[in-house]
Structures are given as structure tokens and as C-alpha cells.
């Protein structure tokens, strides 16, 4: 498992969280599971970075939290995207795509 782990570049986690929440409101555990699944277990999000990131995003007003009931009937804290969060997601997605394309181009040609 350790071999699969890739260090996320600064700020990328925020983008991933926002993207994950763009589909539907989720609680923290589901967010980390979803990221792990979709990335085919390449990206493992540690709680140590997930929760501070969630609270930071909440403070910035990009996501908001409310208490709900989970699939197994337990109280869980659900996060959902706010309007400004959605805008922010678009912005970050754009810039990420540009960055990735640029890096890829350099790697292939150089």
C-alpha cells in the first residue's frame, strides 16, 4: 500500500474535495473513500489532512456543513458545495488542467 501512495501537491486536496462534493453532499469518510476508489487506490487521503482541509474550506465559505443521517443510520456531518465553492471549483479545475497540460507537454518534448 505504501508504494501506491503519492504525495499530493499543495492545494490539490482542496480541489479534489470540491470536485467530489460537486456531485452530492457527503460526509468526510465517504469523501476519502470516493477519492480512493476513483483514483484506483492511488490517492489515499489521511484523516490528518482531510479534516483540517474540510474545516478550512468551511471557513472560507466554499462548503457548508450540516448534520444528517448516514446509510447505516448514524448521525454524520455532511458537507455540501456553496455557490462560491462551485465557482472556485471551476476556477481551480481550469488552472489545474492548464498546469497539467503544460507539465505533460514539457515532459514529453524535453
Amino acid at each position, binding site marked *: 500500500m505504501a508504494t501506491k501512495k503519492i504525495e499530493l501537491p499543495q492545494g490539490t486536496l482542496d480541489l479534489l474535495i470540491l470536485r467530489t462534493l460537486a456531485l452530492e453532499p457527503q460526509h468526510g469518510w465517504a469523501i476519502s473513500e470516493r477519492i480512493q476508489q476513483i483514483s484506483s487506490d492511488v490517492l489515499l487521503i489521511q484523516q490528518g489532512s482531510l*479534516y483540517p*482541509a474540510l474545516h478550512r474550506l468551511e471557513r*472560507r465559505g466554499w462548503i457548508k456543513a450540516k448534520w444528517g443521517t448516514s446509510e447505516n443510520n448514524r448521525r454524520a*456531518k455532511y458537507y455540501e458545495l456553496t455557490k462560491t465553492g462551485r465557482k472556485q471549483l471551476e476556477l481551480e479545475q481550469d488552472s489545474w488542467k492548464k498546469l497539467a497540460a503544460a507539465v505533460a507537454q514539457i515532459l514529453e518534448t524535453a
Partner: protein
Amino acid sequence: MFSDLILRLRSLFRRETVESETDAELRFHFDQQVAKFIKSGLTREEAMRRARLEFGGHEQLKEEIRDARGVNLVETLIQDVRYGLRILARTPVISCIAILSLALGIGANTAIFSLIDTVMLRMLPVQKPEELTQVRMNDPRSPNEEPEPTFTNPLWEALRDRQDFYSGIFAWSLTQFDLSQGGAVRDVNGMFTSGEYFSTLGVRPVAGRLITAADDKRDCPGVAVLTYGFWQEHFGGAPSAVGGTVSLDNHSFEIVGVSAPGFSGLEVGNKFDVAIPICAAEIFDGPKTRLDRRSWWWLNVAGRSKPGVNADELEARLGVISPQVFAAALPRDWEPKNQEEFLKRSFVLTPAATGTSYLRRRFTQPLHILMGVVGLVLLIACANIASLMLARAAARHKEIAVRKALGASRARLIRQLLTECVLLSSAGALLGVLFARWGSALLVRYISTGDNKVFLDLSLDWRVLSFTAGVAVFTGILFGVLPAFRSTRVSLTSAMKGSQAIDGESRAKFRPGKWIVASQVALSLLLLVASGLFLRSLITLVTMDAGFDRNNVLIVRANLHTAKALPEQQPAMFDEVERRLRSLPGVISGSRSVMTPVSNYVWNSDLDVDLPNAPKGDAALAYFNFISPSYLETVRTPLLAGRNFNDGDTKTAPRVAVVNETLARTFFPNGDALGKYFRIHPDPGKPAPPILIVGLAKDAKYESLREEAHATAYFPIAQIPEDAEEQVFELRTAARPSALVPSVQEAVASVSKAIPLEFHTLAEQVDDSLVQERLLATLSTFFGALALLLAMIGLYGALSYLVAQRQPEFGIRMALGAPRGSILRLVMRDVVAVLAGGLAAGACLALAAVGVLQKMLYGLAPHDTLTFLVAIGVLSAVAMLAGYLPARRAMRIDPMAALRYE
């Protein structure tokens, strides 16, 4: 961002909820994870173990979440404050000394600043004060002097009737009225106002109505408006007061209303209690009323501009009408040359948003000097606390090392230490505000004189409070920064070794302490020099030979005009009163005159003599007094040559005069004034009889103790050329002058019960003329002593600390055979070095700074050597004493005990 703020506040104040929510959230995550592992086939224990491993430190994660929510800043601040309070409470004596000296420093600053605020900065409590401007006149004869603020009534009326560009313009004049009807005078602060005064300022009545334009017409019956304060004080706020009457100078006025509380006139430092219309002056003056007099200057004029019209435009429009205005009010009896110059006058405007004030002219400079003085005191107090903090930081050396070893960052520690300092200074500021309330009230009482009660509204406003808050934060940081930075620079290993290093390191560590004490010495010297200069000026003024003897003289001012005595009866009445007063038991000598020395009143005119090179213009000015024959004897001004006046010098006898030395020297340089004649420069078309000089008197101060003797001429009171309806009796008494008041009242009442009397002593009158000097001398001496005390506490504390630090070293030295005296010398060498450095710096500072005091001094130069030497001597003596006490302790150290301690 609003949501951010809500979130932070919620995190801060609903801390318990937020914490448990975070716990629940993390718990949920943990449980989900465990469930997932179990599903993938692990046993329950195995699943829990792996989940816990993945999770890492629970508390650490929560701390990171708290950081992410941005609550830590505030939370640690609260922590710091709590911890700081505990630390301060652990050393209550030191903390109290620190808070007290800060409170004195901050209190003194706040007190002086609140005076500056009220006298110079505060806006008038009226509608839109920024629209108000005072109208004054530039005199072409004296272009460098301040524009003249007083108007004659004809001039005011001419201006009022010819302008149409003000939204309102008004005139006023403050005066004193006598409420009593005969007997001892009961003064009330009166004001003449034009009809537009209250309406232009936007002041409203709380009862009845205020004076209106309809009240201010010639031949008016006169109505009175009371201020709220006076109404409460004298009528108990009774509604029935409106419609009643008030007696002013023995004339009855109907009270038509009461003005709203808070407003007490435009002149800061003076208030009015009763306002009456300008036209009522005729009621007091009779046919020769000041309303028609073209050289009776008594009114102030101010106006409110129309919206959007600025002062420059107003001045320009005033410039257009000013020739007509001045022409209409031309004083016809002036000499042609002066009339020409009168016509060349122009109006200038000065902002009146903060009111007008004679206090401002008189006390601006002293207040600024005092502000500087108290600023220095505060600096010295700060220095004291800084060295206290340094010493305490050294004592906390270990604690800080331990905290650092446990991972506290240096920034965090510095913040903790600074928090303690700001706590100290805030406590000092709170206490200081209390001191200031009390101190500034005391100051106002101090600058009030018998004749001139100063009235200032000293309520705290935002400006004073923010000043104090600013000072508190500034001082906290000032005395906190250096110790905080030094004490957190700890080498962990040496601190952990547990020994207080005794080598050069600790002495180097003490160096900032020495710097602090040296600068305290320097600042104290500056203050001592300043207070020495003020004190010596005052002593010179108080002890100098003024040419009269101020002690044991009762001054009784009597007004026959208010007593409604007919002019032709007055001389006989005054004569009779004088005769009765002189025969009172306890009176050594009694006299009467028109002027008394240093009384704020002057009577002067130019003299003509028939000599070539006779003085002209300003040089020909002489000051007059009209006296009864016993005056010179009563005030003890010696007659040097010739004769005194006697009963033969009657109204119809040839005119005679006694002159003082300066007059004789100025007009008769050959030294032969006796027997010569002079004339008083006449108004055009009036006769000027020759006056024979029959006597020569010693110079005496006339207007103020600070003056060079004025050329003075004394005339027999019987030969006074115009009516003087108010005259003064001087009574030299054997015992306390004020003890004579009842018998004087009785004696005067036996002549007429209607005569109002005002009592002073000559000594009071002289003292009152020295308010400014006494204020500066007393306060600077007080603060100088305070500074000295603070500096000595600083020196004593710093040295005690040094001695304690070096105790083992001294022990070793003594064990090796050093005589005790050498230890004493060792410590005293430090004292002398600090003292010498501080004195040298202080002397340079003082030499550079005292120049600004020049104008406030009398009889000595700012660089007065004696004052400097005495200040240096006092400071050195006290500093050596403060240093000797710890040095002696060092000398008495028991070497064995000191070494064992190590």
C-alpha cells in the same frame, strides 16, 4: 467575510459544542473505517488496530482542525492573559509598584491632555460649529499683532446692517453683574447678546423663550435668560422662575426663559449665567451709554456662513463693505492721523468651531511645556518597569528555558511576555484615568483666580480616552519589547546546567539595565533643570522689591454707580467712607485711589513736556493713578523728594503730580524734574492745563511684576478729570486683613446701605498675577521630584539585582583576601559610571532643550549655571545614596555562605 466571522465566533464562544461536534465527526470516521476493515475480513481487534494506526494522534488532529478554523489566535490570547495575571499576582509588590508608577505617569499625561483637549481642541456644543467664524480686525498700525477681536457698538451695528452674506451674525460681551442690592458683592457671570445670538447658534430653550431680535431694540426694557446650570443652582429649577425677576447691578430684569443644558457660551474657560440683550447696556450707563460710544471696545462678533460659502469668499465680501462700515463708525474725537488709520482697517475671519478663549493665548505654551514634562515622567516610569521586567525575566530564566525545551516557539514566548506588559499598562491606564479626573479638576482650580473663575467642562470625550488607550498600549510595548526579546534568547544547555553563570556573560546580560538607568538619570536631570529654572523665576518674582509692600493690605472696591448715587454727591461720599475706614480699630493706615498695583487695570496717556528732544509716540506714554494723600504711605511706596499731596490740593487748586523715578528720568534727563511742568496730551479741541511736579516717588510695579517699571504719575484724587464712580480703599492692617471685613461693611453701611463692596487683599492680587508662573513652578517641581524618585527606584533595583547576581563572585574575591572596601568600590564604580554617563547625556539634552523655556522665565537665562549645578548635585547625591545601599549589602556578604550557595 461575514460567514467567516460567525464561524470563528461560534468556535470561540460555543467552544464546548464545537469541540464535541469535532469529536463526533472524527469518531464517526473511525467507526466507518473499522467497519470497512471488518468487511474486508479482518477480526475486530485487528481492524481497530489498523484504523488507529492510520488515524494518528487524535489530539494533534483536533489541534490542527482548531488552527484551520482560525480560533487559536484568540484562544491563546485568553490563555496568555490568564497566565499573565497569575504571574503578576505572584509578585504583588513589584506589580503594584509598576502599576502605581504607570498610573501616575499615564494619569498626569491624561490630565494635561484633557486640559489641552478642552481648551484647544473640543468643538462647541452647538449646531454645525464648523460654520462659525469670529470677525476680527487687522490694524494697519500694528500689522504683526494678533487681529483685534473687540468692536464698539456703532461698529457692530454698522457691520450687521450692511452685510447680507451671513446666514446669521451676532455679537456678545461677557461681564460681571452684582446680584446683591448693596453690601457684599455677589458676582454672577453675565453676558450681553445681540438678538440673533441664540437663534444663529441653534441653542434651544428648556423653559420659556430665549432672547430674540425683537428684544434687542434701542430703549428696550431688558429681559434676562438664565443658563440651565444657574437656573438649577439659584432657583432650584423651579418653573415659576420664568416670569420672575433677577436683580443685576441693582436693576431688575424679567426672566423670560432658560437655555438648554450643555451650552455655556462661546468662550472656553468662561461661562455665562445670565444673558441680557445688548440694548440693556443703556439701563446701566444712562444717557452717556456705551451703545453710542465710538471708542468703547467691548463686543465680540461671530457669524455663521451660508452653506457652501467658504471663509475666503466671506472675507472677500467683507472687504467690499468694510470701507462703508468703518466710515459709519468712525470715532469722531480721534486725531485725524488715527482716524485715517482707523479707516484703513480690514476684517479678518478666524474659525470659531472650537470657541474663542483667552486661556488659549495665556496657557497654550505652559500646557505644551507641561505636556512635555509629563511625557518625560512617563518615559522614566516606563524605563523603570523595563528594568523591573528585565530583572524578573532573569529570575524566570529557567522557566523560559524549560518552556522552550518543551517546544514553545520564541514568538509565542515573546507574545506571552508582551501580554503581561500590556496587562500592566492597561491596569495603570485605568487607575490613571481616575488620577487624571481628580488631577485636571485640581489644575482648573489652580488656574482660577479670585477675579477670574475658570470654568471648563472636563468630561471625558473620545479624544481623551483614545489618547489614554494609545498611551497605555504604547508604554506597554515600550517597556516590554527589550526585556521580552532579551529574555527569550536563552541558551538551553547553559540554562539546563542549572548554574547561574557568573562569568562575563551575566555582566554583559546586565548591560541593557545600565543603559536604562543611565537614560533615566539623563531624563531626570532635564526635568530637574526645568523645574529649577521655573522655581527660581517664581522666587525672584515673589521676593523682589516691587516698590510696594503687598502684605497686610485689605483692598475694598466700592461702586457708587451701582449704588445709584448722583454724580455730584459721589466725591463727598467717597471722602466720608475713607474717613470712617481710616479710623477703624486695627487700621494702621488707610487711603483711596482709582488704581491698585498689579490689578489688571491700566489708565495711561501720552505726556507733553516743553523741552527739546521731548519723548514722542510710544516713548511718551505714562501710566496714571489718582490717589488720596495717604496712599503712598499705605502701600509703602517711598517718597524720595519733594512733598506729598495734602488737603490743599483740591479740585480748584493748581494741578499737581508726584512722579516716579522712571518718569522723571524719561522726560527730564537732566535730573531736575521737581518743580517742572508737563501736560497730558489732549484730545483735539480740549484744553490741557499744565501740571506741576511736586514730588518724586520710588518706582513701583504698575501692571505686572514682570514689567520694567512704567513711567508713572500720581495725581490728587480730588483733581480727577472725569467721574470715577468705582474707587478702591486700601487699608493697611495690624492683624490679618480679612478679619477687618465685617467692620468695614458696617462702616460703609453707616454711610449708605446701597454701596456694593468687593474685598481682596493686595497679596492675593499679586499672587493672582503669577498664576502661570506658579503653575509651571509647582507642577514641574512635583513632576521633577516624582521623576527623581522613579529614577532612584530604578537605580536601586538594578543594582540590587546586579549585586545578587555577582554574590558568588564577591564571595570568591573575599575568600581570596580582597578587603571589603574593594568590593564596595567595585559596585560603586558601576554606580559612578552609570551616573556620569547619564549626567553627561542629560546635561547635553538640557542645554539643547531649555531654550524653549526662555519666554516663561524671569530674571535668569535658560542656561543658568547655578541651576544646572544644583540639579546635577541633587541628582548625584540621591543616586549615590540609592547605589550605596546595595553596595553595602555586597560588602557584607559572608564569603562562606556565598560560596556554599554556589
